[in-house]
């Protein structure tokens, strides 16, 4: 029997937070390993198309630091994140601070975010929940805008076609 796994869901539990959830068809230990082994993280945590992750250093233990940096294939510009692990409970939970490093692309994201990632496993399916607390609404919204280089105008154009009665109810369930 093939079970359909939940795609990534994004919700806004409060003014300062973003929550991302996703299911994986793999044991929790493996999902945890893919999140905590630098060579593995570099293969999937890439963001929008056209970016690679040349720097990925992680000392996964309480008080340990990490440094992530991405580079654009197109113009070589870089940005990154760094921070410290606050709580490490393999294979179920990692809490870390995340500070934005604007590199060559600029921008800022407030005073850092507190990220709580949790993994639960049921019947061979691992559910990931990542709660990001940005400390303020402004910082959260800045973080949410990442990667939206073509700006709001494009999304307004895009949605002209997707308005419907049904759509309204569906959009509500996301928020």
């Amino acid at each position, binding site marked *: 029997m093939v079970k359909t796994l939940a795609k990534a*869901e994004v919700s806004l539990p409060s003014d300062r937070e973003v929550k*991302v959830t*996703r299911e994986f*068809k793999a044991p929790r230990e*493996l999902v945890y390993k893919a999140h905590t082994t630098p060579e593995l993280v570099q293969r999937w*945590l890439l963001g929008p198309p056209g970016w690679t992750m040349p720097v990925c250093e992680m000392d996964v233990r309480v008080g340990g630091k990490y440094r992530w940096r991405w580079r654009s294939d197109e113009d070589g510009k870089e940005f990154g994140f760094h921070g410290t692990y606050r709580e490490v409970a393999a294979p179920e939970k990692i809490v870390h601070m995340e500070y934005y490093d604007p590199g060559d692309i600029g921008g800022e994201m407030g005073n850092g975010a507190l990220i709580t990632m949790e993994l639960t496993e049921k019947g061979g399916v691992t559910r990931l929940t990542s709660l990001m607390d940005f400390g303020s609404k402004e910082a959260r919204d800045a973080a949410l805008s990442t990667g939206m280089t073509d700006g709001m105008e494009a999304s307004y154009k895009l*949605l002209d076609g997707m308005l419907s009665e049904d759509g309204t109810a569906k959009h509500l369930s996301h928020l």
Partner: protein
Amino acid sequence: MNDSDRLDATFMALADPTRRAILARLALGAASVAELAEPFDISQPAISKHLKILERAELISVGQDRQRRPRRIEAKPLAAANAWLERYREIWEANFERLDALLEELRPKPAAPPGKKSVFS
């Protein structure tokens, strides 16, 4: 309002469970203030205050009927807010799809089926 202010107004209006419940009700069809107040354990003036915030965010509008003044949901700001989140979601989904492929690769390979003995056993 510019796009950014409009999104701020939308998210501010949505950051309250009563207002989200009001919108969920209006998604089923237009309703008067009295009808909207009914399922909630709060006063009509309190509901009116929530409605004003929703109206300012252009999430709802007031219908023609002068007496009932039915409130109607307006889809556009919600769709805009959703499209904005959707872009962010897509970035994560792309990451997670790469992770799916990686997990598949890392998965311990199933043992040889019983009966099919290796030459060493």
